[in-house]
Structure formats: structure tokens, C-alpha cells
């Protein structure tokens, strides 16, 4: 249970800035995902929290106590790595025992031959064994305790790595893309398991991933990072429905949000693909970009039209790829009812509701829309 505060964390490697002043507060007991494309600095940030990497400036505080310069093990955090990082020469049991032995046994007691002969060692070893048995029971790895990591499957290794993290009862768990080495099916399964583990342990989880689906499905809050900066922090729903930046809108959501070229007029009216929207804004006139999620595009009716160039039927849903004539633009619409798929090459009209629209200015910042005015101009804008 810990609150982790980061203030103006900066980090550079060989002159390139990897983190450009991160200010951030992770609340006690929350599941927060650091998400972003590769190279955005999210893993570096996690390693700075863990103490594996020193920051160039800024401060990390855990429960209000600055931990800069404190060794990783003394910060009492546990980390699960992408490659699981199990000790290949040790059995599952010994792997999980390492952090406990390091903490509970003295240096002399850990000596290979002499150690086991010392008084008190047996009692401590007994306690360690009991703790590991309890963890193994919880994670369902009891039958695997005598095997070496090489004899385990990816999912089992993952569980052992989580067990090694859990056994020390850390203040917070740090996960560095722990699911990216698993196959797709197992990943979905482990997602549910990790979320459940978080609910049960009620400990702070900091989870780094480049997979927006993992971030969306597990976290209580998502922090989106791009180019060494924290762009937006919010609940999964906020990040998805109310992105503050076009990069966030494009990164979160699969398939990607459709971005259409638009224009803001002097009176605040907005055009997209040459037709006026039933919306207005207070932004200055100029180019803008209009984002619409695939599931918010209504096929069959509306002011726009395009040709069906590709169909993806996933069984439960389908994605229709439309090419818009003249604009050299493609967009994707989600179709919930797969029984009535449009024919390939057919010409389809489409539109979208006014509240489905997210408008971004030329540098990608979100433009707030005036809903009242949208109501007022509805009639004349009808095409």
C-alpha cells in the first residue's frame, strides 16, 4: 500500500531527453497503467520508480518519503519483468524464496555449506516455506514448485514471476509489459487474472504497457505518455471518450479513430469534408482535424458517402473500410450487425451524431465544442 509521487523527473541518455519533467501522483491502492508507443519513456519511468535507474533531476517519494539514492531492494517495491527474469538455475520454489532469504537470513546464514548448520536458520527456513506454500496455493502453482523455469510454459513462468513479487508483500507492484511475451489468448486470460489479483491485494499496481487494450481493461487510471511527456491522465473512459490530444485519441482505441480534415470558420462553425457540422466552437478560424470513433459512424444514411473497399468480419462485429472519393481518405466503421454486410465496392452513405465528434486544432490540441449552439444550428446544417 503506497502512494507514489513523482515531481519533475527528468532523464536523458547520451544527450537525448527521454523524460522531460514528469509530474505525477499515483494514489494508494490504484491500478495505474503507463501506456504509450515504444520509446516514449514509460519503461524508464518505471525503472526510476524502482530505483534501477537514477533520474537526472526531480524526486520520487513513496508514502511521502523521498527514496532517491535508496537501493531498489530497500524501496520495498516488487517488479515483474517482460522476460519474467526468473533465475534459470533455481527451481520455482527457490526462485520465489530468493527475496525472502535475502531479507530474512543474515549473510552468514546464506552461506552455501555453513549456513544450514546455524541455529535459527531452520526456523526461518520453515517460515519461508510456509509463505511460499501460501503464495503457490493462491496462484495455483503448487505442483510446479520443484520444476526449473525452463520446464514451464510462458503463462506458468508469468505466474511464478508474480509469485516472486507477491511473496515479499511489497508496498507496490511494478509491471514492465508482463504480458507481451504471451500468446493472444493467454494474454486476455492473464488480463483478467491480474485485475482480479489487484482487487484481492488492494495494493498499488503500476503497469507499463504499449498495448492500449491491456491499459483499458485493467486499470483504474491510465497515464498516456508520448515523447517523454505525460500527455493525459484519466480513467479509461475519460481517455477514450474525452482525449485531450489527437495523439491520445489515435493511440487509444482499436481500430484507430478516424481522422477527417476539417475547417473552423470565423463564426465558430465547423466543416468536415466540405459539409457543415451541427456544431460550433470558440476556436480561431483555420484548419482542424475531426475525429470520429469507428463505432460512432452510422452507415446507410448521412451527408457523406464512400465506397466499400475492404470488409473485416470478426463474427461478433465487422469493420467496413470506406474510401471517400475525391479526398483520398479511408475510414473504418464498426458494424454491430454482421448479418447485413454491405457488398464490396458498393457505394454507402454515412454520417455521425454530433456528440460523436472530437475536434482537434492544427497542433493536435482538443477544441472544446459548444453544445448549446449545436442545438441551435441543427436545422440549417441539415444536408
Amino acid at each position, binding site marked *: 500500500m503506497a502512494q507514489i509521487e513523482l515531481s519533475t523527473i527528468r532523464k536523458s541518455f547520451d544527450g537525448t531527453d527521454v523524460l522531460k519533467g514528469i509530474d505525477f501522483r499515483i494514489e494508494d491502492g490504484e491500478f495505474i497503467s503507463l501506456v504509450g508507443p515504444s520509446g516514449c519513456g514509460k519503461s524508464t519511468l518505471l525503472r526510476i520508480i524502482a530505483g534501477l535507474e537514477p533520474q537526472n533531476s526531480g524526486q520520487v517519494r513513496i508514502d511521502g518519503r523521498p527514496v532517491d539514492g535508496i537501493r*531498489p*531492494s*530497500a524501496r520495498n517495491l516488487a*517488479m515483474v519483468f*517482460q522476460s*519474467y*527474469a526468473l*533465475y534459470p538455475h533455481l527451481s520455482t520454489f527457490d526462485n520465489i524464496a*530468493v527475496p525472502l532469504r*535475502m531479507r530474512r537470513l543474515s549473510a552468514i546464514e546464506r552461506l552455501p555449506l555453513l549456513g544450514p548448520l546455524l541455529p535459527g536458520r531452520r526456523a526461518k527456513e520453515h517460515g519461508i516455506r510456509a509463505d511460499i506454500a501460501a503464495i503457490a496455493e493462491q496462484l495455483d502453482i503448487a505442483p510446479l514448485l520443484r520444476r526449473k523455469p525452463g520446464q514451464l510454459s510462458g503463462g506458468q513462468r508469468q505466474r511464478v514471476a508474480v509469485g516472486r513479487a507477491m511473496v515479499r508483500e511489497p508496498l507496490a507492484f511494478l509491471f514492465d509489459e508482463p504480458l507481451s511475451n504471451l500468446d493472444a489468448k493467454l494474454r486476455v486470460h492473464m488480463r483478467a487474472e491480474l485485475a482480479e489479483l489487484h482487487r484481492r491485494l488492494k495494493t498499488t499496481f503500476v503497469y507499463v504497457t504499449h498495448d492500449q487494450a491491456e491499459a483499458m481493461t485493467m486499470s483504474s487510471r491510465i497515464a498516456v505518455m508520448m515523447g517523454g511527456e505525460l500527455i493525459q491522465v484519466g480513467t479509461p473512459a475519460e481517455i477514450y471518450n474525452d482525449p485531450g490530444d489527437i495523439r491520445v485519441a489515435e493511440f487509444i482505441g482499436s481500430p484507430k479513430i478516424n481522422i477527417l480534415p476539417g475547417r473552423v470558420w470565423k463564426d465558430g462553425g465547423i466543416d468536415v469534408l466540405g459539409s457543415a457540422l451541427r456544431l460550433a466552437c470558440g476556436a480561431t478560424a483555420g484548419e482542424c482535424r475531426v475525429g470520429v470513433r469507428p463505432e460512432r459512424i452510422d452507415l446507410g444514411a448521412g451527408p457523406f458517402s464512400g465506397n466499400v473497399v475492404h470488409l473485416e468480419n470478426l463474427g461478433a462485429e465487422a469493420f467496413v473500410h470506406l474510401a471517400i472519393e475525391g479526398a483520398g481518405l479511408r475510414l473504418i466503421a464498426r458494424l454491430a450487425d454482421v448479418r447485413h454486410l454491405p457488398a464490396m465496392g458498393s457505394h454507402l452513405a454515412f454520417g455521425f451524431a454530433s456528440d460523436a465528434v472530437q475536434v482537434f486544432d492544427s497542433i493536435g490540441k482538443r477544441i472544446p465544442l459548444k453544445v448549446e449552439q449545436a442545438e441551435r444550428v441543427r436545422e440549417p446544417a441539415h444536408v
Partner: protein
Amino acid sequence: MSNTHSVSLQAVLRHLLLIAGAAIMLAPFIWMISTASKPQTEVFSSELHLIPYRFALWDNLREAFAKANLLRFLLNGVIVTISIFVLQVMVALPAAYALAKLRFRGRDTLFALVLFGILIPPQATAIPVFLLLHKVGLLDSYAALVLPFTISAFGIFLMRQFFKTVPDDLVDAARMDGISEFGIVWRVMLPAAIPAVTAFGIFSVVAHWNDYFWPLIVLNSEQLRTPPLAVAHFRNNEAGTSYGPLMAAAMVIIAPLVIAFLFAQRRFIEGITLTGIK
């Protein structure tokens, strides 16, 4: 049909070539066994024959063991090679870990110096090292045989290359678990690098078991002699070289390595391919 024929002809040629090569390689070895089995009269006879008329291997061996304390020399060889290897590992592993996994100023320069060190033949430094040992008063001792080889630039290089392949995550996990940096070297890196350590061990033991040059320079006392010097002892006899016992002694001193090779053939080959030696 004709295709398979030509392939088999090629295979025959290939094997003939290999057999010829093997015969050339084995010839001195076979000659050694042959001479070791001959009585003195046959050794000096002018006709050439491999199979002795009178089998005298046991006599020659008995004479070899009687003339020189062969067991003592073998024991010296074991003491020296094992000490060298253990000390080499104790130096090379921490150094290799630092060069492979730690970030510090001047690391690349240091590594370049290690590479440079590999290029220097031991003979080039023999005289300075000899003078150093003389000043310290360590000549003619086990220390003189062992100390100059404790820092192996090649060992550091080999282990560093191997440690590079150990994932950083493993080192970080060990740090999170509270293992110290030296602890990581011995408890995480060493077990992960057992194949490389074995390879290096084979290389090191073979090189120092067979080393003739250095023991010849630093030793005077007979009881410290290493196996190759023991063989030379038979040549230096004033009564003339007795080839039969000499070859028998040579057989005895190469036996440990040959037996080790037969038992761990696969490891030897792995080791040699890994180190790229010979």
C-alpha cells in the same frame, strides 16, 4: 543413378583426405606408444617397425616411475592448473560483469585495453615478470607458477561476451530481490554462464597442464616440476636419453587429459567451438 554415384565418389575422396590428415596427426602419438612399448635395443635398431618384437611397455613404465617421481609431478600439475583456473575465474568473472553490465566512465577504454592484453604473448612479458618474481623472492615456488596467469585477459573477454547475452532483466530482478553486485556475479551470472566457464576451464587447464616454457624458466627444485618438465628430465640424463622410459612417461602425463577428453568429449568440442581456439 549416376548422380548418387558421383556423390558417393566425392564422399570417398573426402574420407580419404580426412583419413590421411588424421594419420598425419596421429603418427607422432602412435610412434610414442610404439616406442614406449619397445625395449632399448629395438628403439635404436635401424629398421623401422611399429609393433615391438618384445613388448616392453610395463618395463619402461616401471623404469619411468622409478627414475622420476611421476606421481609427484602429476600432483604438481593438478595443483598448479586448478589454482590457476580458480584464481582466473575469481578475477575474470567480476571484471567481465563490470565490463558487460555496469555503466561507468571509461568502460569502453578498459575493454579495449583487455582486448589489447590478449594480443601480447606471454613470452614478451616473461622477463619482466621473472625479474618481478625474483625481487619479491617468489622464484622456484608454486606461486611463481600460478601468479603470472591469474589475470587472464582472454578469460575476461570470453566471460564478458557471454555475460552480454544474459538479459539485463535478470540482473535487475536480482537487484530488486536485494542481492548485492558481488552476489549477482556469483549467484546469478556464474550459474547462467556455466557453459562459458567450462569452456574457459578446458582451455585454461589444457594450456597450463602442457605449458613447458614458464615452469622451465622459474623452477629449479625437482619436487616442484610440472608434467612436461618431468618428461624433459629423462632427456637430460647424462647417461644418454633413454627413449623407452621417456615415451612411457610422456604417455602417463598426457593420460589425464586424454581420459578427461574421452569422458567429456562433447563438452570439449563445445568449449573449443565456443572459444574459437585451434
